[in-house]
């Protein structure tokens, strides 16, 4: 994957082993690089942005997989996965239900807050991989839309 480096004249001024200023013309933005175990992130403006280093070969494979997923997204099933860990407190659909884009599928409670998970597109609920009361982790399959 190629990084776009923006206009010429962009540079990094290092302020220490893990801190730097990104200089773009008159704009100076402080960044900090943090690494823990195998995870790396850049802190900028209060944002915690995870970054991964990968080889050209791996990047190409990932790109291929992503394109495949996009293609499948137009006709094939769509997998809806958990993006926050928590507990499923309500399931609003059942297999076979027709749903419209944006319709609530289920509610995941995390940190005392209820988070509605909505359908990314219209379709039919092909299967439910979770139920009320179940604990889910990030990435867990919740619903398959066909």
């Amino acid at each position, binding site marked *: *994957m*190629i*990084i*776009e*480096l*923006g206009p010429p004249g*962009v*540079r*990094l001024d*290092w302020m220490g*082993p*893990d801190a*730097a200023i*990104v200089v*773009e013309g008159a704009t100076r*933005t*402080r*960044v*900090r*690089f*943090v*690494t*823990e*175990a*195998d*995870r*790396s*992130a*850049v*802190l*900028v*403006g*209060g*944002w*915690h*942005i*995870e*970054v*991964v*280093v*990968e*080889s*050209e070969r*791996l*990047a190409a494979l990932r790109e291929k997989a992503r394109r495949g997923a996009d293609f499948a997204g137009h006709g094939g099933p769509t997998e809806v996965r958990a*993006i*926050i*860990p*928590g507990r499923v407190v309500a399931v609003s659909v059942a297999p076979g239900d027709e749903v419209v*884009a*944006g319709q609530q599928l289920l509610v995941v409670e*995390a*940190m*005392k*807050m209820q*988070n509605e*998970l*909505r*359908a*990314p597109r219209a379709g039919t609920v092909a299967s439910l991989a979770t139920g009320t009361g179940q604990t889910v982790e990030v990435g867990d399959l919740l619903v398959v839309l066909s």
Partner: protein
Amino acid sequence: MASLRKDDVAGRGQERLPFRRVLVANRGEIAVRIIRACHELGIEAIGIYSDADADALHTRLADVAVRIGPAAPTESYLRIDAVVEAARSAGADAIHPGYGFLAERASFARSVEEAGIVFVGPPADAIQALGDKLHARRLAQTVDVPVVPGTLEPVAIDRPDRLAVVMEEAERVGFPLLVKAAAGGGGRGMRRVTDLAGLPAALEAGFAEALSAFGDGAVYLEREILPARHIEVQLLGDGTGRVAALGERDCSLQRRHQKLVEEAPAPGISPAERRALHAMAVRLGKAAGLRNAATAEFLRAPDGTFAFLEVNTRLQVEHGVTELVMGVDLVREQLRIAAGLPLSEAALAAAERAADPGSHAIEVRIAAENPALDFTPAPGRISSWTMPGGPGVRIDSGVGQGDRVAPEYDNLVAKLMVHAGDRDAAIDRLRRALDETEIGGIQTTVPFHRFVARDASFRAGEVSTGWVAERYDGAADLRRALGIAKLATGLAAIEGRHPSRPAPPKPVDGRAESDGRWRAAGRADTMDRWPR
């Protein structure tokens, strides 16, 4: 139970409370805050902890820490019997509940009192009376305190034959209106209704949510005031019938009825208006027989009129901004009052000048949430933690580097407070302090707070409860940051400088052998996948 420290109390000051040990029935930053107040008074602090908090700061800071159960709050911090037993076995003279968990459960205050232990808070009867929002609304009317227009009795939701009456009431209240839980708080059981057709479903949903959250499904109707400012008055009562108002706080910046930013005093309000507001709150406190600390919440309509919302019978999350401008330690006052002492000279003097306090304080709640995803919770492990310092900066926090922000609990990780001579200087200080703040490993609300500290309308004091939704575009903010993150990682890689210390371990699949190209991932991908 493990005794962690034995302080000598020889160095403590003049004031001696009759308490030798106080159990702090809470966790996180507020438990730390209360333990510190105990230590300053020469009182031993007994901490309680769940399995998730065995190594938490509040557990380590306590003089004695008692395990009370597994991570789930219902099996630990919400267990009245376990908390009271912990206090009894540790020989505590008093229990401070903090906020949240059991703080506003009248049954808890009663159990504590029945065990012969002092409850640091209002009497159980006052908690019960004021915790019922409908009761509080009726009480306000008896002392000429205007309430937000709405109903004063529970909606007869279980009586289909009364639906016509309910509809009539709703039309009288006016739309948009809110269905609210009488036993509610934190937006639970609350539903917004824009027209008559949507009312039955909202009543049903509000009832069900209130019943599951509070064990009481009673709901009532209240007109939605928009744009409104949320302004609340800090009250202290000492049991002699004396109730003092220690100024007000503006908590208008909210999302989903959760506060994000609080300040004292409320900007753009004259001392005369403040005095009138404080007097209303004091009338309410006296009518309720208030002892110890409580907060009366009001909405201020665009025409400048105030309407009473509810009373919280506990220490508020945002009590620190009042402490900074009033020069009063509210937790110390709470402990004094619980010990039977009258309001301190400092508190009485503060109440005298509360309408014109002469300085300004702002608090931002740094929570583990993603501001680009409508502030959804973002738990995780904190990999790096840099907090600001310097003049006029106060940090109240219960976590640090290496700690896990557990999904079981509230996601507040730190309260950053600034104090300065006036509001402009306080905002400058806030911006500076936020620039020094760096938290790695989890996403927090810091980007939002940085936006607030730089925003012209915030500086102009144009705050309202709709401000966050109207003015802040978290996704756009993140896109800008992503661009810079990509630039930074790309440049670092090209320079052959691995931006980490110490050098990261080589992954087994040999990825570190790569040509050093980076890919910004994770949150960006997450955003694309999560329907907004």
